[in-house]
């Protein structure tokens, strides 16, 4: 099972971010998602929401480029997770900067909701800059919209399990999986939002998901500069997905 780690960049500070990301680079996982900080991370829960404000204060493009380069050197793919509200006035300019930073692709959690009317323009702008658009949708996305975004893209799929990051409401996950798998065929499905325990990962693996994305679970340990707790969490994730 594949593993994607999410970090809001550069939270909690440039120095601390570097320290924590370096602790992960020799571990066995596939993808890194770097959250580009925004004032309005609408679909994140309170834990990830609070990382954006602080990261905005420390954000710099130069540091982002260096970080992406460093992660890619370790053989991991790096994706920018960005809200479309960051670039609604200049999508091309934003895509250029993401291309220059060296990202493999983009995950846009609000593309199919708040920016639905311009989804094709944005998808085309992403690919014109040589970036992969990772289709992101959740359980309430209609079949027709899922089919369309799958046709516009070729990469793995990001399925948002819960309505928001870091929270858990009761869901009928096997039924959700069965519907999404039917729509996605052989495409790799990475599931994220609300995944924070070994038990949940085991369940998702058994159901058939190809990978998981985790972010909120280690925000507290980064915030408290608790390297021991951070290492334990990351190693648990590595072991549950690759063990």
């Amino acid at each position, binding site marked *: 099972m594949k593993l994607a780690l999410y970090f809001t960049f550069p939270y909690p500070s440039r120095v601390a971010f570097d320290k924590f990301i370096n602790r992960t680079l020799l571990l066995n996982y596939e993808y890194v998602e770097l959250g580009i900080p925004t004032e309005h991370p*609408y*679909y994140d*829960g*309170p834990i990830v*929401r*609070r990382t954006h404000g602080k990261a905005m204060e420390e954000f710099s493009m130069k540091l982002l480029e260096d970080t992406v380069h460093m992660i890619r050197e370790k053989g991991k793919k790096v994706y920018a997770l960005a809200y479309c509200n960051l670039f609604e006035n200049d999508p091309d300019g934003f895509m250029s900067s993401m291309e220059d930073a060296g990202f493999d692709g983009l995950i846009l959690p609000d593309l*199919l*909701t*708040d920016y*639905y009317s311009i989804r094709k323009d944005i998808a085309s702008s992403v690919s014109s800059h040589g970036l992969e658009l990772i289709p992101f*949708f*959740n*359980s*309430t*996305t*209609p*079949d*027709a*919209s899922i089919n369309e975004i799958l046709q516009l893209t070729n990469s793995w799929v990001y399925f948002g399990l819960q*309505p*928001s990051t*870091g*929270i*858990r*409401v*009761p*869901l*009928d996950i096997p*039924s*959700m999986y069965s*519907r999404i798998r039917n729509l996605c065929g052989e495409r790799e499905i990475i599931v994220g939002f609300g995944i924070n325990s070994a038990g949940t990962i085991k369940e998702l693996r058994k159901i058939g998901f190809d990978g998981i994305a985790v972010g909120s679970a280690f925000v507290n340990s980064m915030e408290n500069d608790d390297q021991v707790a951070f290492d334990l969490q990351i190693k648990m994730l590595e072991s549950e997905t690759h063990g």
Partner: protein
Amino acid sequence: MYKYNHFIPLSMYGVKNKDIIPEQWYNITPDLPEPLSPPRDHDPERSSIDLLNRILPLEVLKQEFTSRRYEKIPDEILRQYEQAGRPTPLIRARNLESFLNFTGKIFYKYEGATVTGSHKINAAIPQAYYAAQEGVTEVATETGAGQWGTATALAASLNGIKSKIFMVNVSFRQKPLRKRIIEIYGGNVVASPSTLTDYGRQILKKEPEHPGTLGIAISEAVQYTLDNNIRYLMGSVENSVITFQSIIGQEAQKQLEIEGEEPDVLIGCVGGGSNFSGFVFPFMKTDVEMIASAASEVPKFSKGKYRYDLIDTAGILPQLKMISLGADYVPPPIYSGGLRYHGAAPALSMLVNNGRIRTDEVTEEKSMEAMQIFARTQGIVPAPESAHAIATAIDYCRNHENQGKTVVLNVSGHGLLDLSIFGD
């Protein structure tokens, strides 16, 4: 269940209730033309979505976020539906056709035939059932016109639990009989704003005679739920409620099929959107015309904006993207309390916004006229809310007089407890 034109039970034609009542609810979400914008938190410090775990019965919450197109209705709920008067009749309004010199056909689905007199029981029974199954002993809710409060009180009693009903103050004063029937069904009803919650007390301190709004009553019911660790039942707007109400449209489909009829237009009234959406969504895959009728005095369709807004005035629940006049909008005290809500269900709002569903707005005066026409032709006194749909249907028929159209409208409730609209 009756044969449309002359009130002969369909059982005499070999059609049984179970042939009409669907065994599954229909959830439109996977069939929508574009994705629904998800609920949003508005307080950066906390997750109002996570808080739903403490507010709603878990099975209801699960259905709120489900992608399943069809959800099996548990046998016990089917039994309670039948005891509550389902299926409701679909009746051909021949007298109204004659009155209007209409060359087409008019049918009405009569939700007033349920034991509580409106469609609201369709959503109250499953929520009360799921709450009771989860060991909850009391539920709370709000009510505008009183129909939802009545349905909640009965559904709670049928499932062996208590109910606390926050009734919008102006309706509480206008409709003493509603209060009485809620109490007869076993509910405990209070005027909102009330002294039972912090939020209610704050409002009463500023304005002791505040008329109340549905947004305030929802806030109080949710606050009371959290304060007392009970569960809250939702009357409209939310996806799961719309799904529960799909029983109306699914029954109508079967009834029309039995008669060999295909509708040209479906018409219903809209407060939060539950009866209208439950009625029309099962027909969405056809090209039938759909018209949502609201109150001119609460002009959500002509003056509202499609945006994220609060469901409740206090902002305890998540924001939803919907057509809204603003959560702090205080509507005029029109008699149709069920149409006073500031917003409309997200899926309905989307379909209005993209033009799939047309809208109309009807004045209270015109709806009262429609109420009388319907009473004098069909013998049924409709609820003032439903009379808006009837007024829209009458206009439609007058504008399409010789086109042979088949009009189907949903009469969401009776108005026998609303007669003071015509004066004391």
